[in-house]
């Protein structure tokens, strides 16, 4: 057989086989191929108890070897979700806010974690905002970094470029930027070069939370993505939630409506107590945020 005939035969057989593949594979299962999707409508919901969940997310300033639950709580975000509506809110609290800490007089709010662990931290926040968190989740710099590595890059909308000579010499550009691993932590941690100091840092932490939420929503359909995310949180966060509760909350996070997310930072002025610079929080505004959001996890205006 000549080479030309062989090649022709080979091509013909290959064509036939590929045609068989094309025809047989789609119809080889139990249903025909569906090529026209007329219209798909969507139903979603998550049953949580209560319907509006409040979680206090605490970033401990513990270093390696220190107990994260007996250090200062430097990142404080009270996060609410209304699973009936898909609304969510985050109320940021500057760490230096001078508040009453039950049983310990007045102090910076971040000291509550050191004095009495997650329980007292939750009580101090409840005293300021007027909402007692259902759950307290405490993590560390390296815990957040590991979670960020596990879930992959997130996108944040950064309003102002900033740098830090120690944490991020090259800085972060303004606009939509992608953050991974260590950069997630440094973006949420840097304070000194921000015009609004701790207030702006708290807002940046909320941008990170929004980035994680968007990531969860985008990947919830991926096989095992939520399940593995929950394992990562279990490995890197101290929490009073059991695995099923964490899973429920993770699914609720994935179903949050991005158009119904509101974020505010408790405002205040700079004060001086015993020679130390502190934030004197606007307690009336803090209480208003709590009153606004308590029932539906929505703050109408900051």
């Amino acid at each position, binding site marked *: 057989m000549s080479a030309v005939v062989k090649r022709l*035969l080979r091509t013909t057989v290959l064509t036939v*086989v590929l045609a068989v593949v094309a025809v047989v594979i789609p119809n080889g299962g139990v249903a025909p191929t569906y090529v026209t999707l007329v219209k798909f409508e969507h*139903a979603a*919901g998550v049953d949580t108890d209560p319907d509006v969940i409040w979680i206090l997310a605490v970033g401990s300033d513990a270093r390696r070897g220190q107990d994260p639950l007996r250090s200062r709580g430097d990142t404080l975000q009270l996060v609410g979700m209304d699973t009936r509506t898909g609304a969510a809110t985050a109320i940021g609290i500057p760490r230096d806010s001078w508040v009453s800490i039950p049983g310990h007089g007045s102090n910076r709010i971040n000291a509550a974690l050191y004095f009495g662990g997650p329980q007292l931290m939750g009580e101090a926040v409840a005293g300021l905002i007027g909402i007692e968190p259902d759950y307290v989740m405490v993590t560390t710099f390296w815990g957040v970094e590991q979670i960020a590595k596990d879930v992959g890059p997130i996108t944040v909308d950064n309003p102002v470029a900033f740098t830090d000579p120690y944490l991020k010499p090259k800085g972060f550009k303004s606009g939509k930027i992608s953050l991974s691993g260590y950069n997630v932590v440094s973006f949420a941690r840097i304070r000194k070069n921000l015009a609004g100091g701790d207030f702006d840092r708290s807002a940046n932490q909320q941008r990170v939370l929004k980035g994680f939420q968007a990531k969860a929503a985008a990947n919830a359909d991926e096989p*095992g993505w939520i399940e593995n995310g929950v394992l990562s949180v279990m490995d890197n966060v101290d929490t009073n939630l059991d695995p*099923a509760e964490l899973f429920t909350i993770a699914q609720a996070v994935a179903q949050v409506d991005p158009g119904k997310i509101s974020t505010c930072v408790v405002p205040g002025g700079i004060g001086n107590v015993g020679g130390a610079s502190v934030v004197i929080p606007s307690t009336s505004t803090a209480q208003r945020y709590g009153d606004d959001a308590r029932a539906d996890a929505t703050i109408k205006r900051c």
Partner: protein
Amino acid sequence: MRRTPLGALVLALTLVVGLSSCTGDDDDGSGGTGPETGGSDTASGIETRVEVGAVAGKLPKGPARDVAADVARVVDGWLDAAYVDGDYPRSDFGDAFPGFTKDAAALASKQAGLMSNKAVGDQVDSVTATRRVVRVDVLAPKGKAAAATAHVNLVIELTGDQERTDQVRGRVLLTRTKGDWKVFGFDVERGEVRG
């Protein structure tokens, strides 16, 4: 017999065709490639193909298959009660959500046009399932199954005044409490499909 390269190619492709045809892969684009755990008996149409999806945590294959089968049984209860079973034309869908928590059932009832056949039940003479696939991702920290996501792909053919083929696909979310799996949430879409 000497096997030529061409013969090997044909054999390989034939095997691919054969394997693909046998598995009848889910067409939801999510690439369900986990091991099958066998079918789950259903009342009408075809039986459900149950697959083990991703397992987060150290759960051996055997127990994972058992979990998938248990989860699929609950999900099947919903697929039957909401879509496949019942005397059509049918207007009563009050029992469409067995295995759901009370509040999840209430949420589903508010969206019953998608989460059941309520919107078309009285215009339909028969419902036949032509595809039922449930792929189960499992959360099993320390080897103990605590939660699961059931990826559902159901295709039903409706006859009667509403003569059409619908697909119901998406995620059904379950947790296990005291040994029982309960649906606490869902993220499901439904639409008409044409071949």
